[in-house]
């Protein structure tokens, strides 16, 4: 063991290697509810060459390697289930290139979404990326690795759909470039017109390689941005409302939330719509289109636009929405977790009824949040429950509620997003056997020693 520690010190410098109880404790867990597993070492590299050497060392010694961004998935994806080396990527946070005209950016894998947002606002004010509502420290590579979603998801799909190139350290330690960058200096496409190899890595949680660079597509940043909330107490009509809204193609992002507190929110569903424009005319035109498309629901008295109090607007327009993190303290306990299946939008009514049923059954505070993906192609529906970390009983009840939410979602045709290890097992069990076989083949060929984030996406 001392040999490994010494070798890691030689690779990244002794200040950036730890096998001390303090780091072992912290990196054994994430803020969610999954049980801890201790790593043997934590390293914080700064160069891709260091990662190559770490992976080669791990291969030689046959010890697991777990890449970690901010560890905010909440579902235990960076908990080292079989020990080994946790690689904290956040020291690799350089913004390497912005191609203004081709609208893409190349960043190191540990770059945070917050840093990228800030950098673009200062240096490329006409460009933006799809920022998720996870905390600002969430990293770009980890977010695309888990198929995260963000502010531009309704327009352009999952954040991983906006990837335009990758650099990956393979389980062999070799560096592999994915997409146009494999033969061109320009990182404009992760696949087309080549075979799209990005699928060998995106969604695999590091089980097939470590993403060290990401090129992300950037999009026009309009000068103005505003938010409207359409409120309805008819959950059954929400899919129709979303259908009309997405048809306009006028909206930046569509989120639907339902929660019991404060009282004015109780029993209602809030379709939150973000609109943007470079001029007042553009903004007002979009606003009119949005209002008009929901007019029939207003006339039938099934909903209406809510006057947003001035104090609430900055919170809604905030990117990322730090209020999402504040949900963790509703029970003054520092915890929340959600089961967030990707599911058809027409399942919204069942999902929202289920989250309320689970909250009532397990006596939990809940928040239901749906983010529309693409033009209504699907949604992420979050069965979110907050818990008190100092209350083991509440944590146990939350676990049960989440498990039931997962069972429900799978039965309703949903697919787990950033699944826990148990949800991964459920997924693989239900999956078409040929697909499952293909996944097995990919994993075994890329990572024959099984050292990459083992436990995840293991097909037996």
């Amino acid at each position, binding site marked *: 063991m001392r040999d490994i520690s010494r070798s890691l010190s030689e690779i990244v410098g002794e200040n950036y290697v730890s096998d001390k109880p303090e780091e072992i404790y912290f990196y054994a867990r994430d803020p969610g509810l999954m049980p801890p597993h201790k790593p043997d070492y934590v390293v914080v590299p700064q160069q891709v060459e260091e990662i190559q050497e770490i992976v080669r060392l791990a291969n030689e010694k046959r010890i697991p390697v777990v890449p970690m961004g901010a560890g905010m998935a909440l579902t235990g994806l960076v908990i080292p289930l079989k020990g080994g080396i946790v690689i904290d990527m956040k020291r690799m946070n350089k913004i390497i290139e912005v191609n203004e005209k081709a609208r893409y950016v190349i960043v190191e894998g540990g770059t945070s979404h917050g840093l990228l947002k800030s950098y673009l606002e200062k240096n490329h004010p006409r460009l933006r990326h799809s920022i998720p509502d996870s905390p600002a420290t969430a990293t770009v590579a980890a977010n695309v690795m888990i198929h995260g979603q963000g502010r531009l998801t309704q327009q352009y799909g999952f954040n991983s759909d906006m990837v335009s190139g990758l650099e990956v350290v393979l389980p062999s330690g070799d560096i592999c470039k994915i997409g146009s960058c494999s033969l061109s200096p320009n990182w404009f496409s992760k696949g087309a017109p080549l075979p799209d190899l990005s699928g060998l890595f995106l969604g695999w949680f590091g089980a097939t390689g470590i993403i060290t660079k990401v090129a992300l597509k950037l999009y026009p940043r309009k000068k103005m941005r505003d938010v409207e909330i359409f409120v309805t107490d008819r959950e059954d009509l929400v899919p129709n409302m979303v259908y009309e809204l997405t048809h306009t193609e006028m909206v930046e992002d569509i989120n639907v939330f339902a929660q019991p507190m404060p009282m004015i929110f109780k029993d209602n569903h809030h379709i939150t719509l973000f609109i943007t424009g470079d001029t007042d005319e553009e903004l007002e035109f979009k606003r009119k289109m949005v209002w008009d498309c929901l007019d029939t629901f207003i006339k039938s008295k099934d909903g209406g636009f809510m006057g947003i109090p001035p104090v609430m607007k900055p919170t809604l327009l905030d990117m990322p929405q730090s209020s999402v*993190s504040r949900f963790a303290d509703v029970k003054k306990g520092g915890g929340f977790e959600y089961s967030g299946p990707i599911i058809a939008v027409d399942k919204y009514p069942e999902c929202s009824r289920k989250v309320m049923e689970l909250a009532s059954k397990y006596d939990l505070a809940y928040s239901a949040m749906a983010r529309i993906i693409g033009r209504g192609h699907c949604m992420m529906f979050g069965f979110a429950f907050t818990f008190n970390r100092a209350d083991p009983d509440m944590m146990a009840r939350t676990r049960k509620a989440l498990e039931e939410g997962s069972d429900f979602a799978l039965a309703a045709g949903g697919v787990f997003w950033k699944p826990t290890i148990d949800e991964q097992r459920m997924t693989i069990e239900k999956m078409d056997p040929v697909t499952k076989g293909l996944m097995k083949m990919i994993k075994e060929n890329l990572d024959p020693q099984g050292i990459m984030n083992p436990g995840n996406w293991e097909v037996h």
Partner: protein
Amino acid sequence: MRYEDIVHRCFRCGYCKFTADYSDFNCPSYRKFFFESYSPGGRMWLIRAWLNGEIQNSERLQEILFSCATCANCVEHCVFTFSDDLVNIFVAAREEMVNSGIIPPPVRDYLKNINISGNPYKEPSEERGKWAKDTPVETYDGHDYLFYIGCVGSYDERAKKIAKAAGSLLVKAGVSLGILGDRETCDGNEVKSLGELGLFQFLAQQNIDLLKEMGVSKVTTLDPHSFNAFKNDYPALGGEFEVYHYTQVLAPLMRSKKLSLRDYEVSITFHDPCYLGRHNGEYDAPRKILESIPKVALIEMDRSRENAFCCGGGGGNFFTDILGGGEDSPNRIRVREALNTGAQIIAVACPQCAKMLEDAIKAEEAEDKIEVLDVAEIVARALA
């Protein structure tokens, strides 16, 4: 432990590590060590683990707790309702360690020296006021203000120059002030932040009793750390004084005829001291002073005011050096940021920041590019 009922509430979301615009990591210890365990969220989780017996007091845990610069960036940026108590929680954990008697040797030595000598330098109290020799600054005798200097300004060679400049300038501006000289003792701000609450209370009470005995009603301090103790901690112990940092007294006097200023064509960037800025909300007074000097060009660093990056000297680290050393020590990062502005001078309003940044300039081998001066020293240069 005090605040034990809060530590489990941290979600470790990490907003506490950043500036408001997320442009950089702004927690000095996280920025240096880069392990999550050295971030505010890491400390919260580890304090809880320690209290629960899941980890033990160790050299590493001591380094994690005592490398906090108490700069309050986390207080500024944490999104939770308990944010105001973050630094208090870290100090309370240090108290637990101090009470257990197992603390880092530099912390132990600092506290011991204060206990024995009333200052960390082990110097006799007779030396305290010697900096004022050959200046117009008198010993306090019913003046309008007591000018409280603090240990660093009293004993450190570099800081004594700042005390001379500030004291002389205030007198020239017509401020009636006097010092305690050899009757001054440590204000206790760092003693408290290092977790020795009993010693802090003893020191504070000594100062309060003396000031009351002397009939002091208004205090102005050289050092923002002293300012913080007098303003925020002494009232609870019966020390109700009007308290000002010296820049707050000087700023309104800059346009008076007593201070005749010449053109001073120089570019300056101001480094906000944490105990003047984030801890006490004073960002404008030093800037107003600098802006009053004709031809001075004030250039802001990327991180300033509420988002200023700490020099790494707070929370006792000026004396213990637990956070210092290496290219990523906060003072060197801050000097590189100042160099990026192209400014010729880093202005400070804290003798501890002055020393920290001067050391960093030497380490960066940038002596020919930039210098560190206290606001008072800059004004002194510009006097006609």
